[in-house]
């Protein structure tokens, strides 16, 4: 026997008009679905510092980082430069990591240093009220 799953009605059955919304009943909105494509490849991090303010990333913001997507020129990435993690804009043409803050100079990736992209920042979350 197959069981057919039906959405629950929004109004009681007994009397009066049925709710006009019943025909449009859907699942609740899920932020995970909205923000994350590759759950197993995604991690969260906390921004620390002011070099990315020009792209709207401020100290204390939560970063959503996806390892599974190919980092492209101009993406905001988490990079491990000689083992040290930093969040910058990837400049593939000039082989450098660029800050989004004119006060901070781009970091050139030297020939003998090791650059590994640890994921692309796909969203950043700004906390306007701290919920405890």
């Amino acid at each position, binding site marked *: 026997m197959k069981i057919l799953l039906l959405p629950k009605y929004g109004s009681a059955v007994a009397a009066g008009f049925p709710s006009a919304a019943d025909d449009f009943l859907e699942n609740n909105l899920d932020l995970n679905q909205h923000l994350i494509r*590759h*759950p*197993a*490849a995604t*991690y*969260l*991090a*906390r*921004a*620390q*510092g*002011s*070099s*990315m303010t020009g792209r709207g*990333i401020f*100290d204390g913001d*939560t*970063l959503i980082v996806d*390892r*599974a997507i190919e980092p492209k020129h101009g993406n905001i990435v*988490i990079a*491990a430069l000689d*083992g*040290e*993690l*930093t*969040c*910058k804009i990837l400049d593939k043409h000039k082989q450098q990591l660029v800050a989004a803050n004119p006060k901070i100079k781009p970091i050139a990736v030297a020939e003998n240093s090791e650059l*590994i992209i*640890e994921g692309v920042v796909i969203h950043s979350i700004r906390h306007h009220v701290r919920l405890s």
Partner: protein
Amino acid sequence: MYALVDCNSFYASCEQIFRPDLRGKPVVVLSNNDGCIVARSKEAKNLGIPDLQAFFKIAHLLRQKGVHVFSSNYCLYGDISHKVMSTLQNYSPDIEVYSIDEMFLCLAGVQEPLIAYGQTIKQTVWRDIRMPVSVGIAPTKTLAKLANHAAKKIPKVQGVCLLDSQEKWQWLQKRLPVTKVWGIGSQLGKRLNAINIVNIYDLATANAKHLRKQFSVDVERIIEELNGKPALSLELQPTAKKQIFCTRSFGEKPTELKPLAQAISAYAARACEKLRAQKQYCKSIQVFINTSPYDNNYYSQQLVVQLPYPTDDSRIIIANANKALKIIYKEDKRYLKAGIGLLDLSERKYNQQDLFQKSQSEQCDALMLTVDKINRRYGQGLLYWGAEGSNKRWRMRQQFLSPAYTTRWEDIPFINC
């Protein structure tokens, strides 16, 4: 065909995921209570750091060689294991999670060349999770295990080894001792050596029917599997455990009854949670305590207690565990370890009601359900039983614990901007 995907130095690799500065460096992970080394990165192995060595004995050597030391971080390891598993699900509809760091995949129906497929799996797990894995592919699970061993040991195959013909697996079998076979322990290995079965090839070409009589049907199955005939299928559903044990070493060795009783109560509570999660009752429990075997007057004792009826009620199990503890406890000892085992388990749904005997009430079911639900939602240990005490000085020593990067908000990694 089956693939066995095995994470390389799993615990040590987990510690390197959010610490790229530690990749390629010697890293070791300590057991519960920082007792001994349980995992080593390749670099630590190359430095000659031995496995299962007591930490206090080689702490100076580790410092001298610049080895990075971590306490076990099971929150992190469990979550990373889960991520690896869900990534592998893209490569096979049938997966058996064999252990926290090993998964069997059924590769029936894969059209691609299998070595390339294995490489894709390996590269994807690295790209998505930063977990290095080795892949062994063969027509049976036992051969896949062997293939995985080869994938780790032979650099030329680059982490993926396919044993798809008799010549290939026999080549390997001739070069490995029989104890390298999945399911052949050192005891059985000795008995096989005694009848001139030394390497795996000797076993694979031995008379299966004959050995079945001498040993067991398991040995016959292993021989079939070693010859490419599948005798073991994937176990897709984890089997419910027949016993549940919760044992820990103490950080600060207690001598008095009170902290010991609190520890036993906490372990009992944890074991009961697991019991309820697998929807079982238990009928008897075992309590054990021991001092350090290095102490002069080594003391070790255990006791099994029958419960009044099959139950998963934390209160009854904790009360009975404490009764047992009082009987086996001796004064003037420094206890190193204590534990509880839930034995004699049965499925809740098959429980027989007895008109004349008391059994677990519905109120109790509801209470336990609520406690578990609250702890699942707000974090383990938010609600605990009075017997556990509030000052957990006896709990695990974890001097070198890394953050729970992926499971705790306050532990997510900081990134410099």
